């Protein structure tokens, strides 16, 4: 059962203080409009905010990608200069990794994870809001580097000493170091919050091995974040101190080790790869069984292979450094561990195929994207195994072969999976489906464009075309494939445009219509037991969980011959969202105010330390105001009755 904490009951004196929160202004009461969105602590709204912000950054990162491809379409391109090109590919990478894939995964995690485990909200609703606002502040801070004319140009990996003050004298890498530090805080806070949520807030009967695979993969990712983020935090601090306070962590003149950054970065960076891909694995593990009309094949294997990937992901980082001179023993060891990590990944691929095998396959748009992940990720996984062979990797390092590989896993694996999630859960979130016709066109354009863009990079890379170089000379045989890639990238752009049109068109079509009925996909996991779109209180009553895929088992049973038959309609099984007396956490200004302090400190470190003062005051003030503000406002416009679920146990969202 979930934790029952009733801190509000005994601390009456604390409540009295909260009536005048530091005398600044009164507490937000919720309601509608923008004020509701900026003060919300509802995990569903925060999920939508994450998704919207990440899609915004996705468009920025996409435009950067198209500019890169325009520059490389022909030899000796003149669209971008060398300097601008460096900024462009750096910001493309940083944006897509930290401001698109990670927050999109956070969007799904925030919205779905409490619903999948049968909770009213996450464990710490205000911390959840804080994560989002800090992420947004960090992302915007990073992108303002464009406005100040000096975007980061040292690659998303930011290798010091190259990014030190000697070789990167501009402010760009400061924006990088501080911006990633801020988004790192967001990831860390969110990860801790979701771990506590999963471990403590599950519905009665939902043991760990009755959780959906998506929830499992998100849990593994949060553990990876909790342990990986502090490592890049250290690296970024050291870089920042080197650049601004004269320390010598990356100064080889005084004997510093030029490999220190690479080790710290990749000890974070390789788990980060799994942080990017595992949410997508989770999404398609929900989509494929639903559209195959079969339970997931080998559920324990799916879970344990995800956990195994999480553990082994820590032991392979140096395969990013095979040519940096780490010595033959290290190379051999990391070669082997890299080959081993292909095993649990292969288990997952085989299990998805076995799930589809013999199923009644329905190729709706979510399923198309999910099968896209299985096939495209396999291509990326196979080229990954070729990197594990150190002699081959030596040949491939710094060529377009590498670029091909990581786009097959991150675009073909992570992003396509996220699109599967969009199409699958859109009715859950917004109460109407995205258009199937446009959706299928969206899928095929993205798939074809993707393969045209990144497929030929394998060839170009093996032919020796170097990555991170702003142009190439004619006569090396690079012309044809580069032109094909550029055309392919614009086909992807068209696919994304169709997606946006689809959002608009389907919303317009659904306007004035009643929301879609319960359970539109005949799905399996618990989030579908709530109405679509999800009501503010999630569950009318928290269900008792008896089986894996409990929701499906409420709809289907076996007849006397052991044949699976429908035993209840969706209307009978699903809740109608009519409960009114549910106790919910109150909205708060402080997460937003606290988050806004960080960019001040960031600009202060770059331009004038005086700016840190207002930033620091905002943060300190917010922390104290937050601490004295009870999570539930006694004067809030909700009923103050503690909701009793069917076990007679108080379900409560706790203090944060």
């Amino acid at each position, binding site marked *: *059962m979930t934790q029952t904490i009733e801190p509000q009951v005994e601390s009456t004196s604390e409540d009295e203080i909260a009536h005048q929160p530091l005398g600044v202004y009164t507490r937000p009461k919720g309601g509608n409009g923008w004020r509701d969105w900026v003060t919300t602590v509802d995990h569903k709204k925060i999920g939508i905010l994450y998704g919207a912000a990440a899609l915004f950054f996705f468009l920025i990162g996409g435009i950067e990608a198209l500019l890169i491809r325009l520059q490389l379409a022909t030899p000796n391109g003149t669209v971008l200069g060398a300097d601008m090109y460096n900024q462009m590919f750096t910001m493309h990478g940083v944006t897509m990794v930290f401001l698109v894939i990670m927050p999109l995964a956070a969007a799904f995690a925030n919205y779905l994870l409490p619903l999948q485990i049968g909770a009213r909200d996450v464990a710490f609703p205000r911390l959840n809001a804080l994560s989002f606002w800090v992420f947004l502040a960090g992302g915007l801070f990073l992108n303002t580097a464009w406005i100040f004319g000096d975007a980061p140009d040292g690659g998303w990996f930011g290798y010091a000493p190259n990014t030190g003050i000697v070789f990167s004298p501009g402010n760009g890498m400061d924006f990088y170091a501080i911006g990633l530090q801020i988004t790192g805080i967001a990831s860390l806070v969110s990860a801790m919050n979701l771990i506590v949520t999963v471990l403590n807030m599950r519905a009665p009967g939902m043991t760990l091995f009755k959780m959906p695979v998506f929830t499992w993969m998100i849990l593994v990712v949060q553990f990876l974040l909790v342990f990986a983020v502090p490592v890049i935090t250290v690296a970024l601090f050291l870089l920042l101190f080197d650049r601004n306070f004269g*320390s*010598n962590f990356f100064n080889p003149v005084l004997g510093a080790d030029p490999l220190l950054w690479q080790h710290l970065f990749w000890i974070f960076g390789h788990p980060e790869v799994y942080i990017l891909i595992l949410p997508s694995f989770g999404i398609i593990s929900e989509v494929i069984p639903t559209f195959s009309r079969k339970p997931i094949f080998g559920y324990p294997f799916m879970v344990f292979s995800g956990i195994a990937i999480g553990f082994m992901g820590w032991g392979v980082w140096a395969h990013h450094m095979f040519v940096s001179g780490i010595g033959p023993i290290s190379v051999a060891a990391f070669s082997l561990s890299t080959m081993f990590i292909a095993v649990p990944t292969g288990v997952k691929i085989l299990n998805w195929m076995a799930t589809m095998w013999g199923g009644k396959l329905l190729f709706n748009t979510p399923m198309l994207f999910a099968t896209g992940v299985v096939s495209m990720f396999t291509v990326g996984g196979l080229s990954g195994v070729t990197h594990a062979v150190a002699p081959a990797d030596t040949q491939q390092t710094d060529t377009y072969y590498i670029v091909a590989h990581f786009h097959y896993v991150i675009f073909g694996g992570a992003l396509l999976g996220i699109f599967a999630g969009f199409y699958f859960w859109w009715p859950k979130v917004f109460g109407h489906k995205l258009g199937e016709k446009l959706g299928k066109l969206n899928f095929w354009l993205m798939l074809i464009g993707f393969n045209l863009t990144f497929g030929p990079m394998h060839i170009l890379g093996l032919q020796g075309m170097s990555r991170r170089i702003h142009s190439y000379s004619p006569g090396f045989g690079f012309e044809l494939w580069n032109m094909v890639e550029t055309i392919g990238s614009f086909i992807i752009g068209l696919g994304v445009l169709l997606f946006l049109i689809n959002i608009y068109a389907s919303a317009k079509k659904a306007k004035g219509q009643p929301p879609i009925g319960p359970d539109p996909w005949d799905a399996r996991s618990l989030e579908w037991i709530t109405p679509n779109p999800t009501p503010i209180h999630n569950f009318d009553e928290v269900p008792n969980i008896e089986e894996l895929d409990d929701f499906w088992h409420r709809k289907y049973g076996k007849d006397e011959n052991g044949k699976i038959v429908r035993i209840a309609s969706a209307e009978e099984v699903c809740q109608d969202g009519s409960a009114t007396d549910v106790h919910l956490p109150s909205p708060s200004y402080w997460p937003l105010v606290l988050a806004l302090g960080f960019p001040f400190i960031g600009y202060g470190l770059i331009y004038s330390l005086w700016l840190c003062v207002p930033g620091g005051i905002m943060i300190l003030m917010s922390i104290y105001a937050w601490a004295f503000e009870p999570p539930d406002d006694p004067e809030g416009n909700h009923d103050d009755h503690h909701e009793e679920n069917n076990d007679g146990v108080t379900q409560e969202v706790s203090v944060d």
Partner: protein
Amino acid sequence: MTDNEHSVGTGLSNNKLLMWVFLGSECLLFGGLISTYLIYRSRFADGPAPGDIFDIPFTSVSSFVLLMSSLTMVLSLSSLQRGDYRNTRLWLLTTALLGALFIGGQVYEFTTFLREGLGYSTSPFSSAFFTLTGFHGVHVSIGIVMLMSLYVSSMRGNLKRESSETLEIVGLYWHFVDVVWIFIFTVIYLVPSPTS
């Protein structure tokens, strides 16, 4: 709730579990800094070497002070759990003072090193030393601020016996910072350092 056969939580409160997860994350933060120091301890360029400059008896005393603050922290919690608010505050204040004494020792040590020619920019060793011990010092300082906040809260009658878990959670943080110091003290001072 405990008699619910379907019980699936960890049995820890959300707040306490959050602190444990956070401390797990902190291990990697200090792990990264300690590793960096270990790589750089013999790279002192033309500056002072660690073996020449460390004053082990002095640091041992300040380490002892910090360790004792863990004891007073426990005494404070146990007073609160017994409902003895006066002793709660007494031990809270003692803990904060011991922490401040440790920070004072660190400030003294830093200024001594500076006078002896070990600046932040002197060498990779000096940068790593000041960064690692500085990060620890900042953690202790944040702990002191939390202790004093609880002290004020108790003065105003808001730190009740029933909410002793708040104090316990701050205590978890405090003990963690102490344990980290045991590692740092061992790695930096007790393991024989290179001399010039």
